[in-house]
């Protein structure tokens, strides 16, 4: 089967843009990705667009209304926080299927500030704070406390994730924040839902990212192969049944399953991967995924962060972009922003946050409910 490459990719600087529209932001990312590979909107044969909050609003077509209405097929998709990665994967599938040679994938989101969701009840009474909590910080706090229960992971270890990712983002001009947050600052920030303090929660931002995917034949024909990055694996899973998943949305088993399948598809193991962008929606989550992705045994995840192995310069740097914790988490854009980071790293164009000799990188996202998407990318030979 034809190999598929990322030929062009870009993301806008994440931030808050209340005076701009979702299609506006998406259009900026599309222009960036087209310019990155020197192509025109007329070269695109299909488009997959990820957006969550306005999933019924034909965002993909409205982006084309800003960048060129060429009449190509557009599919709008929503898959919680895996939305962008799902759009990217659909573009990959379309090329794999042999239907197209050049496909555009876009992810875009505009977010409010503060907690997602609300307590209003459609009928009956609100259950938040009555039958436990369903806020995202609490759900991921409980997932982290399960790890503490099973493996003894500590508040301080969870907090170190946030210290690391905020540090990484000081080297990423496209991140929302470029601010160091020492351990005491993280641990003494407002406690939202123990053990997640405010600095251990991902930042709600507006953002957009886009990628031009291309078949190997076409990338060679257009002489774009040298800067292109090969997609070695693309996997999407849902959550297999778990005994507690009615009250604890499970982000572990879908990640473990996706990782196993991705390594198998790529013919690789975790020891081959040079860097990872994983779904640190909360600091607690990153620790869980060290084990889920096979970077270490689950019980050694706390040690992995303590000993600095997942920092830039460590054995397996994780979230050198700053991650969702500091780069920001515009839900539908996140999956493709991860592809931007890994592609930039594999091209050796990541500036001061460059992972030395990076050849293979992984992206991972979780949409609660649940969906897990993993991609493994390889530098062109």
């Amino acid at each position: 089967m034809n190999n598929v490459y990322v030929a062009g990719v870009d993301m806008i600087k994440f931030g808050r843009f209340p005076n701009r529209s979702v299609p506006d932001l998406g259009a900026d990312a599309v222009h960036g990705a087209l310019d990155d590979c020197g192509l025109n909107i007329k070269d695109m044969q299909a488009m997959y667009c990820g957006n969550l909050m306005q999933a019924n609003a034909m965002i993909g077509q409205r982006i084309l209304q800003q960048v060129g209405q060429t009449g190509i097929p557009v599919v709008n998709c929503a898959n919680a926080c895996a939305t962008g990665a799902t759009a990217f994967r659909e573009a990959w599938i379309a090329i794999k299927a042999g239907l197209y040679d050049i496909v555009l994938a876009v992810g875009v989101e505009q977010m409010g500030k503060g907690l997602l969701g609300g307590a209003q009840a459609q009928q009956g009474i609100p259950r938040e704070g009555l039958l436990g909590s369903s806020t995202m910080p609490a759900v991921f706090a409980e997932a982290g406390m399960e790890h503490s229960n099973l493996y003894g992971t500590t508040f301080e270890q969870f907090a170190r994730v946030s210290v690391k990712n905020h540090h990484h983002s000081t080297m990423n001009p496209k991140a929302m924040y470029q601010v160091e947050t020492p351990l005491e600052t993280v641990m003494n920030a407002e406690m939202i839902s123990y053990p997640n303090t405010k600095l251990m929660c991902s930042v709600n931002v507006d953002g957009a990212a886009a990628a031009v995917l291309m078949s190997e034949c076409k990338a060679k024909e257009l002489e774009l192969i040298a800067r292109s990055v090969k997609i070695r694996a693309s996997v999407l899973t849902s959550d297999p049944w778990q005994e507690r998943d009615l009250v604890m949305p499970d982000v572990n088993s879908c990640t473990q399953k996706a990782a196993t399948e991705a390594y198998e598809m790529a013919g690789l193991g975790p020891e081959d991967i040079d860097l990872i962008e994983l779904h640190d929606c909360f600091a607690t989550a990153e620790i869980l995924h060290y084990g889920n992705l096979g970077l270490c045994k689950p019980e050694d995840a706390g040690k992995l962060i303590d000993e600095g192995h997942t920092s830039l310069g460590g054995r397996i740097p994780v979230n050198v972009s700053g991650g969702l914790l500091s780069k920001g988490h515009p839900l539908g854009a996140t999956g493709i922003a991860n592809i931007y980071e890994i592609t930039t790293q594999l091209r050796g164009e990541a500036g001061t946050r460059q992972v030395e000799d990076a050849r293979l990188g992984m992206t991972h996202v979780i949409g609660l409910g649940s969906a897990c998407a993993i991609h493994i990318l390889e530098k062109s030979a």
Partner: protein
Amino acid sequence: MGESGLRSAIDYLKIPDDGSPYLEGYVCGNCEAVFLGKRTTCSRCGTRDSMHTKVLANTGTLYAFSVVYRSYPGIEVPYISAIVDLDGGGTVKGNLIGVEPDPQNIKFGMPVQLVFADALGRKDQNGNLYLAYFFQPHTDS
């Protein structure tokens, strides 16, 4: 609605006309997976039409928790959101009461028991009151 006149805060909390409130599970006749809330097909093994109801135990142990300090507007904080494995099967989430909401006071595996009480005075749009369940530390004495 039982003698108290309170309505159930959630579908798996049952209030018989005579007798004590209880939590109701659905159990798969094929693989014995336990669910909260009514269903006809088992999502673990896919077996159809073999579900039967079960009265879930009023005792269990604490599996995971969070102390919630910030919630949605209008929700009083702090409170402990607790994940409890009930004895005999079924995992339920609820508020843990009778413990200061400080992580130091909360131990994994601690025995807890279910108590049924008014739903913190919360009313629906028609002014109806509700019955909810809570967990509290369980001592044998």
